[in-house]
Structure formats: C-alpha cells, structure tokens
C-alpha cells in the first residue's frame, strides 16, 4: 500500500498545478457561478414605459417615486409611442397615469386610476404592477385617512380644524417614524433569518456544487484508462498483487484525496454562503463522494480511449444533474412520478439521504467485478 501511495505521489508531483486545479474546480466554479447569478439578479432592470396624462403635483410625485424603484427603468414618452414600442417588445409594459388622478384620489375613488398595457411577452409584469400599486395605494390611503379625519371633525364638532395637507404630512411622518408591521422569513432548519436581498433561496448552491463535483471526479478518474494502456499494463504483471487489487488500491488513494478536498470545499462553501452545516449533511456528502467515486471508477473501466470517456462523462454529468434537480428543483416532477427520485444520485444527495439505492447498486457491481474476474483467471 505504501508503494502505491508512493507511485501515485510521484505521478502527481509531475503535474502538481493541474491536479490542484482540478481538485479546486468545483469550489471555484460554484462560487463564481452563484456570485455572478446573484449579481445579475440584483442588477436586472426591466424597461417600463410611463405615460403621464395628468399634470398635478401628485402625479408628478408618483412618477418620481416610480422612477426610484430599482427594479425598473422608466422611459417617459407619450402614449402612441409607448404602445408602438410595447408592440415591438422593446418595453415590458406601459403604465398610464390617467388625467384627473389627483382629483380621483382626493375624492377617495381610487379604482382604475392607472391603466396598464401588457403584451403577451411581458414576463415581468407582476412584480412591476405590485410595486406601482403599492405607491398608488399609499397615496390613496393617506387621502382616505385625511377624509376620515375631516368627517370626524364635522361629526363631532370641536373648534379644531386641520388642513388637508397637514393631515397627509402627519400620516407620512408616522409611517416613517413609527416602527410598524414587518415580516421576517426563515427556513425551518436555519437559525438566522434571511436577509432581504439574498437571492440564494432560488439557486441551490449544493446542487451546482454537486454537478461540478460529479464532472471533476469523472475527469480525475481518467487515470483508470491511462493505466490500462497496453504499453504500461505490461509492467503490472510483475506486481505481487493482482491487477484488480492494484486498481482498487489506487482508487482508494484517489478516494481519500478527493474526500479531503471535499471537506475543504464544504468548509469554504459554508463560510461563503452562510449555510448551516450539521453532521447529517457531512455524512450525506461522504456518502455522495463514495457513490460518485465508485461510479467514476466503474464507468472508466468500460472505456478504452480517454477521448470518448471525456465526452460521455460530460453527457452523464449534465443528464444526471438535470434529472436530479441540481439546477432547477424538480419537486413538481417528483410529485407526479415517485420513481424519479431514484433516477439520479444527485437527487438523493440534495435531499440529504445517507444510504442510497445508487450506492448499494454500485457497491454490488464493484464486488461482482472484483470477484468475478479472479475466478476467471484462476481457471487459466
């Protein structure tokens, strides 16, 4: 065993940089990918057209607050131009502040004060509509409060009278000063509440890491194919141990190496993304590592050339990741077809399962491979 370790170390010392690169690839790729994706999402801007047909102060304030929304870019134009651009899909949607906006709000009739035009390709209409509605609602709410106060004054008399503007200003002040209702969101197993702007809930960090780990494991296991080249294989007949045993011991060395780097990966990931790590997850990672390594080993035994092996491992990685829900959660699909949960080792890993069908099946195949050939050789 020491000899095998020594030979492997010799092999690695010939290309230290390349080995290190491959071992760190999952972590680098996952971090880059998730950071870029989050950055992208937070900087997305939706172009929206705004038509202001009312020239009151309230309409102006409204358009000012709408253009302050970070999610959308406002393009002010007149109605015909806006509709033409909407038809050409250069705008996501068009909002028109109708004439008489201020009067309607002040008269407490806030229904249908804004007209929105959507096309069939307006993918971002809902959040934009929500944002604009909330601003109009605020205006209308303030006006309603002022209305009620004035009503109370007329009903209950008193020598006080406050101006309309004064009430609205007071209402806005209260909204800013007082700590009012707010909501916090946590996942069931997490301790700290999520921040407002963390988009991590949508991207499964572990899923992306699993995809890259799968890919790099398969690529690192190309040593199996290189060892089987006939020119090199000759020297193996001089060993004291059988060929199968030699391969298995090398596989074990690689497994330990990959396992160590896994732990480093996991530590970096958990620190970088504030994910909580508990013992169950660590065991799930170990089991995943075991499954993939055995899978890579058996898969590589099947191929004669590295070239075909690389292509097939890329295809396998993509296939199993998509089926396993690494990029996009497949909960919708698994609800309908229960058996899909067994289709991919990645899925089992993401759900945190320790003993998986894949692990058992692959172990069985490994044993069969190891013991069967021995028998064949014994007869010759």
């Amino acid at each position: 065993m020491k000899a095998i370790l020594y030979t492997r170390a010799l092999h690695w010392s010939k290309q230290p940089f390349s080995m290190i690169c491959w071992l760190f690839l999952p972590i680098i790729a996952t971090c880059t990918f998730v950071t870029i994706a989050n950055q992208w999402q937070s900087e997305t801007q939706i172009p929206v057209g705004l038509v202001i047909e009312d020239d009151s102060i309230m309409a102006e304030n409204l358009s000012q607050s709408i253009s302050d929304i970070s999610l959308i870019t406002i393009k002010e134009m007149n109605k015909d131009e806006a509709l033409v651009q909407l038809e050409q899909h250069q705008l996501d949607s068009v909002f028109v502040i109708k004439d008489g906006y201020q009067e309607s709000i002040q008269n407490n009739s806030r229904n249908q004060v804004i007209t929105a035009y959507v096309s069939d390709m307006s993918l971002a209409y809902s959040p934009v509509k929500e944002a604009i509605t909330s601003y109009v609602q605020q205006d209308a709410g303030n006006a309603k409060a002022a209305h009620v106060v004035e009503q109370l004054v007329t009903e209950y008399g008193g020598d006080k009278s406050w101006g309309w503007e004064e009430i609205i200003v007071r209402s806005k002040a209260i909204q800013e000063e007082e700590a009012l209702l707010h909501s916090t969101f946590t996942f069931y197993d997490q301790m700290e509440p999520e921040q407002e702007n963390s988009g991590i809930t949508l991207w499964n960090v572990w899923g992306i890491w699993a995809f890259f780990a799968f890919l790099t494991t398969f690529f690192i296991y190309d040593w199996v194919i290189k060892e089987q080249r006939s020119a090199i294989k000759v020297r193996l007949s001089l060993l004291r141990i059988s060929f199968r045993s030699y391969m298995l011991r090398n596989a074990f060395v690689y497994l330990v190496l990959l396992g160590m780097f896994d732990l480093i990966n996991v530590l970096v990931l958990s620190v970088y993304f504030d994910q909580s790590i508990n013992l169950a997850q660590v065991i799930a990672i170990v089991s995943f590592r075991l499954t993939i390594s055995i899978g890579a080993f058996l898969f590589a035994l099947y191929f004669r050339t590295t070239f075909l092996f690389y292509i097939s491992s890329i295809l396998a990685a993509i296939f199993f990741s998509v089926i396993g829900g690494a990029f996009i959660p497949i909960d919708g699909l698994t609800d309908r077809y229960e058996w899909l949960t067994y289709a991919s080792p990645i899925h089992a890993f993401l759900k945190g399962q320790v003993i998986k069908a894949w692990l058992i099946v692959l172990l069985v195949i490994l044993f069969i491979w190891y013991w069967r050939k021995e028998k064949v050789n014994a007869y010759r």
Partner: protein
Amino acid sequence: MSSLKRILFFIKQYQEQLQKKWKSIPLLLLFPILIIGLSLTVIITLFLPNDEESIQVGLVDLDQSEETTMLVSVIDDSTLLGSYIHISKYSEEEADRAIENGSISTYIIFPENFTDDLYKGNTVEISIIGNPNMPVDSYMIKELMDSMTRYIASAQANILTIDEYAQQLPIDDAKRQEILMKQFNQFMLFTISNDKVIHEKEIANIATSSPLQYFSLSGWFVLFTIWIVSIYILLGKEESMSMWNRMRLYGVTILQRLVSRFIVSLLYGLILALFGFYLLINVMGIEFYLIDYARISALVSLYSILFLVGLSLIDLLIKSNKLALIVQLFFTAFVLFMSGSLLPSLYFPEEVKSVLPYLYSTETFYWLNEVALKGRMYVDYTLLLTLAVTSIFVLIAIAIWKERRQS
C-alpha cells in the same frame, strides 16, 4: 497549392472519421433534444400548479385576541387566488410537525399581543417559516406576505393618524375605539381590494411574435449550436507528438488540420441547422420565401463560423485536452445565454446591455428573430461580417504562431 491539396485530404479523412463513428452520431444528436425537453418539463412543472395539490399554508395565531380570531376563522380553510393557495389553521406544534413531514410549504405566525401592539403603534413582527424542501413555494408565499405586510403597514400608519387626531377631538374613549375598529375593517378591505387600482389591457399583436414562437426559435437556436459543438468535439482526436512529427515531415501544418476540421464541422452543422429550421417553419406555419431561406442561411453560416473560430481558438491555446473540453463547454453556455434565447435580452442589467450590440450571438439571434418571426426583409450583415473576417484572420495568425513555437 499543395496546402489546398492537403486540406482536401484531411477533409476526406475527417469525413471518414465521421462515418466510422456513425453509430454514436444519432445518440449525440438526440441527446441535446432530450436534455432540452427534460429541462423544459422541469421548468413547466415548477411553475404550473399541480392539479391535485395547491400550495398549503399554515396559520398560527398566538395572539388569540378578538380581531385575530375573527380574521383567522374567516381565512381558515379558505383559498386565495382561485384554488392556488390553501390556508389552514394550526397550533404551533402541529405546524412544526406539518413542515417536517412536508404537508405545508410555509406557516405564518401572528405573535402575542399582535392587535394591541398594532393599535398602540409598537413594533410588530410577523414570522414566516418556510419548508426548506419546497424553496420555490416558500419564496412565493414570502413575496405575497411581504407585499401584504407593506400594505398593512401603510394602513396602520393611517389608522394611527386618525387615532391621533381623534384624540384631540371631544370623543369619549369607547366611541373612539369603536370608530377605530370600524376603520380597521375598512382599511383591511381597502388593502385586499388593491388590484382595483389598475385597469389592465392586453395588447395582442398577431403580427409580432408570441411566446411560443419566440421560445421555439430559441430552442432551435440552442439545439443547432449544441449540434455544432458536438460534431466539432467528435472530430477531435488527440495525437501523440511522434505522429505530429511524422506529419510535419510531409509539410502538414496545424493550420491545415484546423481548417479541414473547421470546414467539415461547418458543413455538417449547416446542413443540420437548415434542416431543423425547415422543420420549424413548417411546424409553425410561417410563410417563407426562398430569399428568406437564403438570408437565414447567410446568418446561420456567419454565426457558425464565428462560433467555430471560438472553439478552435480554445483548442489551439489550451494544451490539456480535459481543460480545453471544459472551457469549450463554458464558452458554449456563455454564448447561448448571451444571445438572449434563454432569457430575452430585454431583461439583462444595464451594464451588460451596453456590451450586447458587439456580441455576435446576440446580434445573430436578433436578426433571426426579425427575419423569421417578424417578417423583416432586410438584414444588416456589417457587424457579423466584420467580426467573422477579423476572427478568421486572428485564428490563422495564432495557428501560424503556434506552429513557429513548436518548431
């Protein structure tokens, strides 16, 4: 002249290589279709609600005051947004257990003294606990609750305003409380009916693209790009240094092999792409004339040339085979994403949008869209042509430089 002869020779050799591997070609070509189909199914099942189950939300009332009990009893076992969201009442332990066994996706807690704090103007916090196994559902409920709380917060401010002014009027406390209660209900209704604010009109212009057509076009685009990559990679073969030395004795240069591999992939890629396009047009029933096909072929060839140049450059510059393969994979993904076929380029961030006019995939997809879906008669080839010519020269230059370095 001999250079041309050798290129032709290698073209024939690559052709034979392709024919030898003819068994794996159908698999390789069908694989992208399979993956795209799978991804689409996953995305669609994600966004469409399951027919039997709607999203289950739990409601835990720790306040147990008159208002919250009334509110909860009204909402309990009711559905919002049609039958999409189903809300039920739970106690805290029941809700925890329900999250663990996955029967609800989120539950909402009204804390103790909720109503009192609301009236007095103290900080109130509604907690939403999500199920980590159902991230998308939890996220949606979170967004919904966030907007609801924003509305309620503004309503709360208004009620406090009314309260403040009412305190200065000669009204006795009981009456004032009654008035506030009435206002509370009215504001609730006001908030819930907030979708009355906007009057929606949909413009459907049949002449321009509909989502189905747009995404079918982008599907075809993604598909034939992947086909080109697959054929290119399939033709690759690593050769040992001794083989290269022998070939150089005959005067073969890297450039010649590169060019022949390029030409073979280009030809086959074009055939497949145009065939796919013809199918697409027929299935979607768009009127197309021969001249339009010519335009599409010109666009597709320019794009393929640029794309293949990119792939060849990666092959030239990176020595390790494994690394080159992975970089080519990332390059393909990048090109596809930037073209705007996966997500319309309308939704890219501003900084990215300023770079977009110079990227060939965006340009190509834009023109494909214009010609195929919007029936435009004119294509501006300037950017693509200049880029193509420049990149070919760059490729030749780098190949020659590499040749010099090797010898």
